[in-house]
């Protein structure tokens, strides 16, 4: 059997700075954090996480910028309900044809949050990793946290997005394809010395997990060897909120996913909030029978 080796990815330090752990620090007191949100596989919930986490952080008093690094197929504007207010993109800022303040779109209800799209699909020149670094350097002085929504895949778009990040959140679902792709992405992040890398397990279906018809939480965290930052249950309200362009975390939403996203925002700031065990959520007779069925007999 293999001997366990020291983990490469250690548990998150809330703020990567030289401040001793016992000194209470607010996010505003230190250098801004640039956090990449990535997954490898598409459709697992990167953009939904970015939008909800952005709103949640902003409502908790953190000045937050969300940068849509997917300029080919950008959608973050749509999820935040800001699609009609985009006039400029980072490309125009870099070209000097507009000021940064003109390109950053402030959220109406959550003024602590601003969106910057990297570019648009009709761009003549594709952005390069250096461009992304320049953009983020320009944004950084005005914010506490910059969330970079990476495109799916591990090609140029991902490399651009990763170029400007100092830490990362990997989003995955308990499915073999999503976990496999997440593993590839983690490998690439390790090579780039991006840390901490933390995991968000999305679209968990507790019933299927109890019935062992889905990878368990510990199966995924063991395989990927990452600390779990959050666990979001499958929630139909996510689709409803996307339809409206109002993230679940807006206006103190109470749906299970909204609570999960808000907890992720708090953990990201260093608060300790216990993670729920999805297999223990329903404590009725059925749950007891299910548990009995999982007893090891030999």
């Amino acid at each position, binding site marked *: *059997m293999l001997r*366990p080796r020291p983990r490469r990815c250690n548990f998150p330090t809330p703020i990567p700075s030289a401040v001793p752990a016992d000194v209470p620090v607010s996010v505003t007191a230190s250098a801004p954090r640039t956090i990449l949100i990535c997954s490898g596989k598409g459709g697992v919930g990167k953009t939904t996480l970015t939008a909800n986490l952005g709103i949640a952080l902003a409502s908790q008093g953190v000045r937050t910028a969300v940068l849509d690094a997917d300029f080919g197929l950008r959608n973050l504007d749509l999820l935040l309900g800001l699609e009609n207010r985009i006039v400029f993109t980072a490309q125009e800022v870099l070209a000097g044809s507009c000021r940064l303040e003109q390109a950053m779109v402030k959220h109406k209800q959550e003024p602590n949050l601003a969106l910057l799209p990297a570019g648009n699909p009709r761009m003549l020149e594709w952005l390069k990793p250096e461009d992304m670094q320049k953009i983020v350097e320009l944004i950084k002085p005005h914010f506490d946290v910059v969330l970079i929504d990476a495109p799916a895949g591990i090609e140029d778009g991902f490399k651009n997005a990763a170029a400007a990040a100092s830490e990362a959140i990997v989003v995955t679902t308990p499915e*073999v394809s999503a976990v496999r792709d997440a593993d590839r992405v983690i490998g690439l992040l390790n090579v780039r010395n991006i840390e901490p890398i933390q995991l968000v397990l999305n679209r968990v279906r507790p019933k299927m997990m109890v019935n*062992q*018809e889905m*990878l368990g939480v510990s199966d995924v965290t063991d*395989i990927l060897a990452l600390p779990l930052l959050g666990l979001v249950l499958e929630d139909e309200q996510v689709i409803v909120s996307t339809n409206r362009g109002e993230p679940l975390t807006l206006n103190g939403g109470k749906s299970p996913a909204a609570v999960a996203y808000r907890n992720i925002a708090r953990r990201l700031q260093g608060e300790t909030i216990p993670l729920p065990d999805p297999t223990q959520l329903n404590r009725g007779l059925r749950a007891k029978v299910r548990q009995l*069925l*999982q*007893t090891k007999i030999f």
Partner: protein
Amino acid sequence: MTLRDLIDRLLGRQQASGPTAKHRLQLVLAHDRSDLNPELLQRMRKEILEVVSKYVELDLEGGDVSLETEERTTALVANLPIRRVKDTALQTLASGES
């Protein structure tokens, strides 16, 4: 084996798919992480067995050379049950010493 696995087996039902998913993932990730394709692994396995067989008699039935992965590191694990040490190997050693 859990109680459920036993019931499934008695009723001739398919076992839960979660553990299957985990097993398949672990195997595919061991290959992904090491960049070793199955053909190369097969050749390496054959050569390792050839070398070891020069010195000891192996129980080929119970043996296995495979990739395992844990904590994001991949290891080549050889489990080769030895029947006995070959006389020829001992003889070479003795002649070398004298």
